[in-house]
């Protein structure tokens, strides 16, 4: 925060990771300035939004946006059509409500954990999600990394097509860690890396995978800027060599 001539001016101190270049939808007419889409998620990480956050969001989309919010598949909320000169004011309101831009670009995307009130959940994964989010969320990466936690093998949070998927397999403890999944143009289902007994081990494994990925990812063959996804690194090196330190 800096002050200029008595009027408090808000300056952005957070990295602008969630600000996406946007185009206007074809059926909504907005004239004038260039607009951006803003992807926001709750920080500290939460798999729920409070009613206060919804009201803050409502105010922001009414004041600066087009009155619409898009629900994304990784429980982010996308606010479209915010004029570039309004971005800072919109962000200020969102920060106050505990909403931060994030979950975009080549970073660790918003963590996904299933809801704690599900009757099928073998055990709660929300705390794990919070821990992982504190350590790794929005961390800069060679390419996007999606991390999902599922409380049961039904996997509503789609751990099988995430770069790192964690599934609770046992109510007393016990998680399966899957890595190397991917969605999009070429689908890859994640392969089982290891079984873990405790939450601590899960965090350690995720730490190893993320560090190894950062160190070992190269540019995609034939590309000058795009780096490999986790699945491609594992294809190139093999699972054993990938997990070796270095």
């Amino acid at each position, binding site marked *: 925060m800096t002050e200029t001539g008595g009027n408090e001016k808000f300056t952005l101190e957070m990295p602008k990771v969630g600000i996406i270049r946007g*185009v206007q939808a074809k059926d909504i007419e907005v004239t004038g300035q260039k607009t951006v889409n803003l992807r926001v998620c709750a920080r500290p990480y939460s798999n729920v939004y*409070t*009613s206060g956050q919804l009201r803050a969001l409502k105010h922001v989309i009414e004041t600066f946006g087009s009155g619409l919010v898009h629900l994304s598949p990784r429980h982010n909320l996308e606010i*479209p*059509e915010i004029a570039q000169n309004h971005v800072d004011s919109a962000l200020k309101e969102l920060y106050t409500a505990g909403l931060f831009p994030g979950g975009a670009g080549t970073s660790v995307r918003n963590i996904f954990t299933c809801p704690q009130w599900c009757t099928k959940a073998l055990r709660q994964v929300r705390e794990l999600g919070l821990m992982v989010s504190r350590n790794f969320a929005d961390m800069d990466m060679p390419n996007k990394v999606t991390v999902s936690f599922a409380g049961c093998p039904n996997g509503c949070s789609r751990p*099988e097509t995430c770069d790192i998927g964690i*599934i609770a397999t046992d109510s007393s403890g016990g998680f399966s860690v899957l890595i190397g999944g991917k969605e999009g143009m070429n689908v890859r289902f994640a392969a089982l890396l290891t079984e873990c007994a405790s939450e601590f081990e899960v965090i350690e494994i995720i730490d190893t995978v993320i560090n190894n990925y950062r160190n070992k990812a190269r540019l995609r063959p034939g590309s000058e800027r795009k780096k490999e996804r986790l699945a491609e690194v594992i294809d190139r090196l093999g699972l054993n060599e990938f997990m070796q330190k270095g």
Partner: protein
Amino acid sequence: MGPNGVIQSKVKGRVTLRVRSLKPHTSEMTALQLGVLADIADSYGSGMVHITPRQSVEIPHIDGSSVGEITALLERAGLAPGSSDNYLRNVIACSRWCLYNAAPLSTAAQKLNSMLQSLRLPAKTNISLSGCDFSCVRSRTSDIGVISRQEVYITGNKCKKCSLCLKPPLGCQVDAITLTDDGVSIDQHKCVRCGFCVNACPPGTIAGKRVSYDVLIGGKGGVNTPREAVYLTTADNEDELVATVGRLLDTYTRLARESERIGDIVNRAGLEAFIL
């Protein structure tokens, strides 16, 4: 099977309500709808909501007896409980504001959702409509996935050799474009008709024409037996797409034994069973 959208909880008498938007767009919420959800979460629930991966909103810890009251409140705002059990799950579509869209599909999703909102099927059925080949909404692991495709051609406009159509993020993903001194050329055999290059080309040398919709069936998530969807057919316009999806659901209902999902039928009877 309980009423659509009402999910039993661990506590007796308490339920979780799954809510989806029916208008103006099923993949988005309006300011009014957000306000209504916040009010309901405060007065009937525990002041919080969960955003599900299928663009619906879960309001937990609701008293089972107040569901009727809440439904009336929701309907006034264009929202409705739904998308649970074997009822057709919320049809999802990707963002209309995305730069990669070959053709946005929110209107098709809205049509399907309002037409089929209380349709009961043999098992859980996911329909995902994706505006481009990246398929953020996971068309390739849904029971029915749709991907928009746009045919591209070279117009008379002079190429400025900016090479935006070659470089990521908006450039060609399959190396079908080559840039020479004479301008750009597109290898139609390599082209997957995603339409990225149309959005990327500033002088309009590359332009898009006919948009079509690829329909894929039989995908499935879940950790134990995930399955990738396979290509079935192509619809030429949005009305045809809606009709095709309707016919597919009819065929599925007719063919399914017990609680088979579309992928299981494809495994058992082959893709021919679904060819219309």
